[in-house]
C-alpha cells in the first residue's frame, strides 16, 4: 500500500513525513503516555491491595473468635458442697458461691485425667485444673440453679477451656511462648493435646461469642458481643425513629417550600459544614448537652442514639434533597395543574417517587452511624457492662455497649486473646454493614428510574 504513487500537491514540502513511521518526538511522548497509564494502574493496584490485606488480616485474626475449645467431662455434683442444708431450696443454694463450684469442677477435671491414665512429667494440680476457664464454674452454677434436681447427680458438661489452651489449638499459643508465660506451661499444653487426642477436648463453632456479654480481663474465652449487638441495635432504633423523619422533613422544607433568602442560605451552608464536622465533636456535644446538662444517664443507648442522630442528619438531608431534586418539575406541575395544593403535590407525588433514593441515603447514613466509635467513647459507652439491657423503651436508658466501642475496649486489654475477639467483633460489624449496603444497592437497582 505504501508503495502507491503518492498524490502530492504542488507546495507540499519534501520534508513531509510518513504517518507509518513514528518520529522521535512521538516515540518519546508515547513512552510518557505509557508511564502515566502505569501510574494510574499502580494507584488502583495499591488501593485494591490495601483492601485485600485489610480484609485478609481481619478475617485471619478474627475467625478464631467463632470457634471455641471445650472440655467434655462428667461432673459429680456433690450435694454436701453445693447444698449444705440438703433441702434444695433455691434461695439458700444461691448463697453457694462459684468458688465451691470451682472445687467441684477441679475435682472432675483431675478425675478425668486420672481415668484416661495420662502421665505427664512435672504437672501440678493447679496446672491440671487450670485447663478450664475461670468462667466454667459460673457456667455450671447457672445450670444447677436453673434445675436444682441435678444436685447429687453425675452430669456431662462441656466446660470452656482456658484461653491459652484454646489459643494453643488455634495456633496463637506455641510451646515456646508457653515456656515464658506465667499463665500456662508446655506441660499443660501437652496434657491438653492428650485430651484432644482422646476426644475429650473439642473445638467447635462458638455461638456464645454472638450472645455472651463481655468478660473480665482474665477470661477472654468467655467474652462475647451479645450486649454490644443489642446496644448497637437500640441505637440504630433511636436513629431510625428520629433521624429519618426529621431529616426527610427538613429536606422537604428546604427543597420544596423554602424561599430563596439569606436564612435558607445559612441553613444550607450550615448543613454542608455540619456534614464535615469531626465525629468526636459530636461526642463532646453529647457529653455536654445530653449528659451534663440534660442529666441523661451515661453509657445509655438513648444518648448514643441521640448523638448519632445529630451526626447522621446532614448525610440523610443531603441524600434526600438529591433524591427530591431528581424528580422532574413536570410531575409537580402536573399535580398542581389538576388542582392539588403544593403540599398535596409533594406528599402524593414527589415523595413517593423520591422514596428509593431517600431509602438508599438513609441506609447509608445508618451504616455510617453503626460503625462510628469516637463520639460514643466520650458518652461513657466504654464502660464494662455485664447485664443485658431491658427491652425498649426502658432498656434505652440501661447501660449497654456498642459493637465498634466493644472492639476498641478489647484492644485496650493486655491478653492477646482479646485481639482475636476484637477482630471477631469487627467481622460481625462488617457483616451487618455488608448486609445494609447490599440492601441499599438492591433498592437502588430495583427502583432506579431514569427521567
Amino acid at each position: 500500500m505504501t508503495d502507491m504513487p503518492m498524490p502530492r500537491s504542488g507546495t507540499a514540502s519534501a520534508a513531509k513525513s510518513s504517518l507509518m513511521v513514528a518520529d522521535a518526538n512521538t516515540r518519546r511522548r508515547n513512552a510518557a503516555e505509557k508511564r502515566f497509564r502505569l501510574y494510574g494502574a499502580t494507584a488502583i493496584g495499591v488501593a485494591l491491595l490495601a483492601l485485600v490485606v485489610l480484609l485478609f488480616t481481619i478475617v485471619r485474626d478474627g475467625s478464631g473468635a467463632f470457634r471455641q475449645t471445650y472440655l467434655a467431662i462428667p461432673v459429680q455434683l456433690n450435694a454436701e458442697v453445693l447444698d449444705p442444708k440438703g433441702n434444695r431450696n433455691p434461695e439458700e443454694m444461691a448463697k453457694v458461691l462459684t468458688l465451691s463450684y470451682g472445687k467441684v469442677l477441679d475435682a472432675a477435671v483431675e478425675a478425668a485425667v486420672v481415668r484416661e491414665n495420662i502421665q505427664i512429667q512435672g504437672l501440678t494440680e493447679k496446672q491440671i485444673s487450670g485447663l478450664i476457664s475461670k468462667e466454667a464454674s459460673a457456667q455450671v452454677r447457672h445450670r444447677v440453679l436453673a434445675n436444682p434436681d441435678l444436685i447429687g447427680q453425675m452430669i456431662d458438661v462441656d466446660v470452656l477451656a482456658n484461653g491459652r489452651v484454646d489459643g494453643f489449638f488455634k495456633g496463637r499459643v506455641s510451646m515456646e511462648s508457653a515456656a515464658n508465660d506465667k499463665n500456662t506451661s508446655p506441660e499443660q499444653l501437652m496434657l491438653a493435646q492428650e485430651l484432644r487426642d482422646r476426644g475429650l477436648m473439642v473445638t467447635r463453632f462458638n455461638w456464645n461469642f454472638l450472645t455472651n456479654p463481655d468478660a473480665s480481663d482474665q477470661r477472654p474465652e468467655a467474652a462475647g458481643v451479645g450486649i454490644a449487638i443489642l446496644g448497637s441495635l437500640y441505637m440504630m432504633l433511636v436513629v431510625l425513629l428520629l433521624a429519618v423523619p426529621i431529616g426527610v422533613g427538613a429536606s422537604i422544607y428546604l427543597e420544596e417550600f423554602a424561599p430563596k433568602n439569606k436564612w435558607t442560605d445559612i441553613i444550607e451552608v450550615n448543613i454542608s459544614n455540619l456534614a464535615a464536622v469531626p465525629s468526636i465533636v459530636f461526642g463532646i456535644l453529647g457529653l455536654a448537652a445530653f449528659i451534663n446538662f440534660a442529666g441523661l444517664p451515661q453509657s445509655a443507648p438513648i444518648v448514643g442514639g441521640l448523638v448519632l442522630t445529630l451526626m447522621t442528619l446532614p448525610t440523610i438531608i443531603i441524600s434526600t434533597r438529591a433524591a427530591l431534586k431528581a424528580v422532574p418539575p413536570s410531575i409537580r406541575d402536573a399535580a398542581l395543574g389538576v388542582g392539588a395544593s403544593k403540599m398535596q403535590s409533594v406528599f402524593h407525588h414527589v415523595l413517593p417517587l423520591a422514596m428509593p433514593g431517600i431509602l438508599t441515603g438513609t441506609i447509608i447514613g445508618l451504616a455510617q452511624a453503626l460503625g462510628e466509635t469516637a463520639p460514643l467513647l466520650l458518652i461513657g459507652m466504654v464502660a464494662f457492662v455485664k447485664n443485658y439491657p431491658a427491652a425498649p423503651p426502658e432498656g434505652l436508658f440501661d447501660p449497654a455497649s456498642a459493637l465498634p466501642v466493644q472492639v476498641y475496649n478489647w484492644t485496650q486489654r493486655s491478653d492477646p486473646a482479646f485481639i482475636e475477639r476484637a477482630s471477631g467483633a469487627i467481622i460481625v460489624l462488617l457483616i451487618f454493614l455488608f448486609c445494609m449496603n447490599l440492601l441499599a444497592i438492591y433498592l437502588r437497582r430495583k427502583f432506579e428510574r431514569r427521567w
Partner: protein
Amino acid sequence: MYDMNRVENAVSQGDIKISANDVQVYYGDKHAIKDVSVDILDKTVTAFIGPSGCGKSTFLRCINRMNDTIPIARIEGRIALDGEDIYDRRVDPVQLRAKVGMVFQKPNPFPKSIYDNVAYGPRIHGMTRNRADLDQIVEKALRGAALWNEVKDRLHEPGTGLSGGQQQRLCIARAVATEPEVLLMDEPCSALDPIATSQVEELIDQLREKYSVVIVTHSMQQAARVSQKTAFFHLGHLVEYGDTDDIFTKPQDSRTEAYISGRIG
C-alpha cells in the same frame, strides 16, 4: 451574494488529499455509516451536508480518528491520507491528528491564556526550539485566523474571555498553529451569531489557499457560500458528491433534490 460566491468558487482544484473507500462505521449495533467512498481534494473546501443524524459528523471524525475515543465505535474500510492508510496498525493517531486538525461545533478554548491556547499544539508536538520561534508561530497562526489585530494587546488574558466568534477563531488559530495539512470543521458556526459567522466563513475561504478544508454544516446556504465540493449524506449513505454548483443547481438524486428544496431534513 449567492452568484458572487459562485464566481469566486471557480478556483482551480488540487489533487486528491484524502480518499475513502467503502467506509463502514458501527456504534455498537447501530450501522452509522454505510459504504462511503469519497475523494477529498487538496486546497479545496468540501462541505458535508445532510439532515441531522445522517452521519456527516461521524464520517468527519473518522478522518482524524476522533472516533477512537468512543469505545463502542468500530470502523471498517479504508481511509487514506496522501495514500497512506490512516487506520494502519503502525499509524499513531497522535501523529495523524497533528496533520489533520479539527475545529468543533462549540468554541472550546482551554481555560488558559490566548497565547497558551495557540501555543499548545506546537508545544506538545515539539515544533519549536525557543520562545522566539513560538512567538512567531503564535503570531502567524493568529494572523492566519484573522484574530491577531483584535488580541495582540491581550495575549496573556484568558481565552475564555473572548466573544463567541473570537473564541471560534481562536480555536481555528489553535488548530492552524500545528501546521496541519487538512482542517476538519464540525459545524463551526452553529453556536455563533450572523456577524461572527460571516467572519469565520471569510476565514474559511482564505484557509483554502493552504489547506484542504472539510466542513460539516447543516446550513445549505453556508455550504453554497464557502465550498467548492459538496457531499450530501442521508441515513448513513453518501448520496451524492460533486461540485457545489452542480449539487445545488442540478442534483442527480431525488433525495438530494428533496433535501435542497426543503422537503426532508
